[in-house]
């Protein structure tokens, strides 16, 4: 006989409980911050600014919005945008190249599959690396940039290193998970044939995770571009610096040019990485 369908109300499932918890937390946070919905409506000057700012979105600037008082030999506005973008990209690429090395090394050491078939005492080392990774990830790149500014002064290397440290941590964490989740049949087969642990890992395991690793790295490059853009708010010459200056001078059309430029770069990287992922999966 088929089991009868439950008629009595069931206990809330895990998902219902977690949803309830989440919404309760949001309500507590709302009152904890002392927020009111009225503050969401911009007042007088704020409202004027909203109007001006968003009406500027349909006509981004292609030349300086206010050329009075500018030196006559100043380079054209679009050059400035290009220079800002270029610096943003160079910081991002430099930071990513460091993070890839750091993330790969730490990711190997933090993964369980690398230490398989080895002495169990290595587990301690693996956990030390994992804690190190968590610590690296926990401090935001802007806070690190502040520390470097305070200790070393302003230099492009400070921005690059500030981005590279947390990014190495994130890459290492994700790489180690990808390595551990990669299919293990080939590795097991190699191991039964008598291959050494390192051979098993490098030939049987690592290549299986490589597509995921590459796809994720590209996604992180996109994030690095955003981080490097924001570094401009601290005086580095990335696009954030110019955006802030234009906004403070109330040149909203210039602000939109910078925003659109950033969006286009991010978009290109996203389309590119989407295509890469499709090739890998196919």
């Amino acid at each position, binding site marked *: 006989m088929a089991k009868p369908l439950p008629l009595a109300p069931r206990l809330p499932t*895990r*998902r219902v409980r977690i*949803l309830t918890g*989440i*919404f309760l*937390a949001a309500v507590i*946070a*709302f009152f*904890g*911050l002392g*927020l009111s919905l009225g*503050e*969401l409506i*911009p*007042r007088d000057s*704020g409202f004027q*600014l*909203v109007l001006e700012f968003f009406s500027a979105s349909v006509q981004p600037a292609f030349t300086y919005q206010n050329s009075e008082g500018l030196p006559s030999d100043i380079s054209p506005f679009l050059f400035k945008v290009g220079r800002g973008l270029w610096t943003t990209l*160079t*910081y991002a*690429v*430099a930071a990513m*190249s460091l993070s890839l090395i750091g993330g790969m090394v730490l990711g190997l050491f933090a993964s369980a599959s690398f230490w398989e078939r080895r002495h169990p005492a290595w587990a301690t080392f693996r956990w030390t690396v994992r804690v190190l990774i*968590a*610590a690296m*990830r*926990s*401090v*935001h790149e802007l*806070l690190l940039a*502040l*520390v470097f500014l*305070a*200790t070393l*002064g302003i*230099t*492009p*290397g*400070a921005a*690059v*290193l500030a981005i590279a440290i947390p990014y190495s941590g994130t890459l290492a964490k994700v790489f180690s998970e990808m390595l551990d989740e990669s299919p293990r049949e080939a590795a097991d087969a190699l191991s039964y044939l008598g291959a050494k642990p390192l051979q098993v890992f490098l030939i049987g395991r690592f290549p299986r995770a490589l597509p995921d690793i*590459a796809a994720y790295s*590209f996604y992180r490059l996109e994030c690095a571009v*955003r*981080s490097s853009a*924001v570094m401009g*708010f601290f005086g580095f010459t990335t696009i*954030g610096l110019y*955006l*802030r200056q234009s*906004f403070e001078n109330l040149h909203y059309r210039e*602000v939109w040019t910078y925003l659109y430029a*950033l*969006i286009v770069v991010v*978009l290109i990287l*996203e389309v*590119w990485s989407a*295509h890469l992922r499709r*090739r890998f999966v*196919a």
Partner: protein
Amino acid sequence: MSDRLAQVEALRKSRPRSRLIRWSAMLAVVCSVLVWLTSDISLADMFSTKRLGHLDRFITNDMLPAKLRGDAFTWGGLGDWCGEQFQLNGARAMLATLCISVLAIVLAAVAGAMLGAFGARNLMSAHPFLPHATVGHGDCSHWLDRVAQFTRLICILLRAVPEYIWAYLLLAMLGTSAWPAVLALAIHNAGILGRLAGETIENLPSQPLRALSMAGGTRRDVAVVGVFPMALGRYLLYFFYRFETCVREATVLGMLGVVSLGYYVIEARAHGQYSTMLFLIFLGGLLVMLADIVSDVARRWLQKGI
């Protein structure tokens, strides 16, 4: 034997290869090398004598609280000082940061779920889930397909602009309260969660949804009764994954003048209290690690069952 080797070689040669992947990898390597060789970025400059002098002064002097400098340093004194700082601003800063990120991620999740539903091409087609409707092929000229395209474009715009810049712009419009930070985080994450939700919906197994549709369910019926419960589990995993990034990001948004941890960090820096600054940054790190653990535990708990 050589026959076998030839077979292996033939197998190797016939492996799937993509020009795009190879060119991308090469471009990545070349760009990295060029950036280090040609731009003004130099790690050596970071450790020049001048900067090392800076660093030395920072470590021996600025880094410690004024009353603990030089011979007056004791670990007990440092512990007491940390306790004082924690009570003064630290606890408040951590709590505000946490509240901002919780509220932001919940708003983002609600908005992201909507964006995901309207951006999913299988749901937003002329005949959702019916056998003759195939995603990505055939006629995509129905107005609902346009809705899906437009929603996806919105998602891209929302997530392409960093949270910090959203917060900076919103702060000028809304004035000083926690809203700019909350909204900035919510907007950026709604773009990300919207895309992830859309992908989740598109990857759902189509049979149960088709059954609902063929039994006469409208698009809304299928969405509420079929798509939502089926996609919820995975969406919650993404939710917790974004939550930890949200906490991390919330720590810095305060630097614009909102009361999160970053605000007190900037304050301390402006007053030259580098010891306080470092301690607050340390607290921020602790908070992020805690959020990391919470999100990890929640995800594991969710994966164990519904």
